[in-house]
């Protein structure tokens, strides 16, 4: 195995790492003085511009899994890994056309505000908060375990220390700086990640004489070249239907992720909200187009050496190392150090956004909306949000320790499936369907959540890969969205037909006007 600096403490990586921490904590200190009220804590006072929010959405959304994961997936599994590049993006137009404006116009700080707009507040907000917090915690586990092993792999830092460092930093950003600090951490991360990925893609092209022809010829000449370039090898799914299910979850999961939906309250109006989706789609799309080049560059240059035959005794040298190794071969130690720091920033921006969304569901939906009937004083509600932030941070660290030995790669997919099944159908039906009732909203969210979680436990990803049961998994699909999202829509539809909610029907016209025009 050729020598690599990966896993050693490189001075460049440490320098970048401390600069990033210094700058973000400085921003948090600045933001803390502007974060007193609920509006400032949850939504940065609504003072973020459309362009800034677009970048922050990109920073909130692009996880380390998409950067390192897709590159590795393409390098080892070939074309089918790119379904993630396309699938992670195509949800954004859906957010734009169906969700962003009603969300901005009807809600205050969370998507539960919107689902409950003309329905009974307490049951709907309770269930929506359960959906939010579940999505957030599943996503957090994936990010925390990923962070621990990634930082260990890149810096040689112990898993537990890495986890605690990430946990403390994310609590600090959210606790003191609220949405304003979180937004700027996400903006900085988006710029770093897009810049780093651009340089990496350019280095790949430079190596191949600035010609995609040369790059793909080099891939085609590999022993498994044909398999890498040809679509349809199902490395990412067990069957054609499973692939469709995965694609469905990726598209509609985006429109149900609480930490993404929450960002639409940081802009002043629907106009800026639209602009921010356009900006976000542009940056995220550009980034995923880069993953095509980076993935096949990794296939051509590093996959054969590092991934096909992993050296014994190097667990975890799996898919995630493709991009960092590519960076080292093409850009040397300093560029590797920079990219490791970028991966770290990437994780921090996502977990901060998740923590803030989870804390808001607890303080705004459950405490203020359900327990206090919508009437609270600012100070107490911000206090509850801060307690929830610390609690979620500690829970995230503990779950990261608990799941240390578990392969959590499936958890990002599960988070998307839960978002697509528990959150998205109820949100869509509440905004667009007059006959939708309170009972139907609660039932749809409960069925979507339960079926997504149960199906994945009974699927090969958990049944076989996590529990190591010898028997065949009861559900052959790795990706539950095809079934669980359909069930959620069906439940919402049927229960609406058999129940009546006169208040909800009467309020529909007013809701529609407000969803379209704002106040």
């Amino acid at each position, binding site marked *: 195995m050729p020598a690599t600096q990966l896993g050693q403490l490189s001075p460049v990586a440490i320098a970048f790492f401390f600069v990033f921490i210094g700058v973000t904590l400085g921003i948090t200190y600045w933001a803390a003085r502007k974060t007193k009220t609920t509006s400032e804590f949850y939504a940065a006072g609504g003072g973020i511009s459309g362009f800034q929010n677009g970048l922050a959405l990109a920073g909130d959304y692009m996880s380390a899994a998409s950067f390192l994961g897709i590159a590795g997936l393409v390098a080892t599994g070939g074309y089918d890994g790119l379904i993630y590049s396309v699938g992670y993006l195509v949800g954004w137009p859906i957010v*734009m056309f169906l969700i962003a404006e009603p969300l901005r116009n009807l809600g205050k700080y969370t998507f539960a505000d919107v689902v409950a707009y003309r329905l009974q507040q307490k049951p709907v907000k309770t269930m929506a908060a359960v959906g939010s917090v579940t999505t957030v915690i599943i996503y957090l586990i994936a990010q925390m375990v990923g962070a621990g092993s990634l930082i260990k792999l890149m810096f040689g830092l112990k898993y537990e220390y890495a986890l605690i460092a990430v946990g403390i930093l994310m609590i600090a950003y959210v606790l003191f700086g609220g949405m304003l600090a979180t937004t700027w951490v996400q903006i900085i991360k988006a710029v770093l990640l897009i810049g780093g990925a651009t340089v990496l893609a350019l280095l790949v092209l430079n190596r191949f004489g600035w010609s995609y022809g040369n790059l793909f010829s080099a891939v085609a000449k590999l022993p498994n070249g044909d398999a890498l370039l040809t679509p349809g090898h199902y490395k990412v799914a067990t069957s054609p239907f499973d692939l469709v299910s995965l694609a469905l979850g990726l598209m509609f999961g985006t429109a149900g992720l609480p930490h993404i939906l929450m960002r639409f309250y940081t802009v002043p109006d629907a106009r800026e909200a639209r602009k921010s989706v356009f900006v976000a789609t542009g940056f995220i799309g550009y980034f995923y187009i880069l993953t095509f080049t980076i993935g096949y560059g990794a296939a051509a240059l590093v996959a054969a050496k590092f991934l096909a035959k992993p050296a014994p005794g190097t667990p975890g040298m799996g898919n995630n190392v493709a991009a960092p190794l590519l960076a080292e071969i093409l850009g040397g130690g300093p560029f590797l150090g920079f990219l490791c720091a970028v991966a770290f920033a990437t994780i921090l921006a996502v977990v901060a956004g998740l923590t803030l969304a989870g804390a808001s569901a607890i303080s705004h939906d459950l405490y203020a909306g359900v327990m206090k009937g919508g009437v609270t004083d600012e100070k107490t509600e911000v206090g509850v949000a801060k307690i929830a932030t610390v609690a979620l941070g500690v829970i995230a660290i503990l779950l990261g320790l608990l799941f240390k030995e578990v392969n959590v790669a499936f958890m990002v997919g599960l988070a998307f499936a839960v978002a697509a099944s528990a959150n998205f159908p109820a949100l869509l039906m509440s905004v667009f369907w007059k006959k939708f009732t309170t009972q139907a909203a609660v039932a749809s969210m409960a069925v979507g959540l339960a079926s997504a979680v149960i199906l994945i436990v009974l699927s090969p990803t958990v049944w076989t890969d996590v529990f190591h049961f010898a028997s065949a998994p009861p559900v052959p699909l790795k990706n539950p969205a095809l079934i669980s999202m359909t069930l959620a829509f069906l439940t919402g539809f049927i229960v609406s037909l058999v129940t009546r909610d006169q208040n909800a029907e009467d309020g529909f016209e007013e809701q529609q006007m407000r969803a379209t*025009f704002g106040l």
Partner: protein
Amino acid sequence: MQNQSEQGRGNDPELMALVKRKASLSRFLTLVMFVTYFGYVCLLAFKPEALSGRVGAATVGIPIGIGLILLAWVLTGIYVRWANGAYDAVVARLKSK
């Protein structure tokens, strides 16, 4: 009084026509994205050889995947151009009436 003006706005035929146009544009663009994406996904799932033709050394699946990402961005661009331009202008005029 507030209520009355709200009522008035709700019955304005020009406004209603605008709301309808907005809803149908949203629906149309959603449909375009849905059909192209799931068309691609179904080919990938059920008939992958349709995406396996060669463009140089690469397969046609690669430009098609990139094309879908670009299409998604263009669709959001069309929407934001209309909504933040012509649509917002009419809404502002009607609101000031």
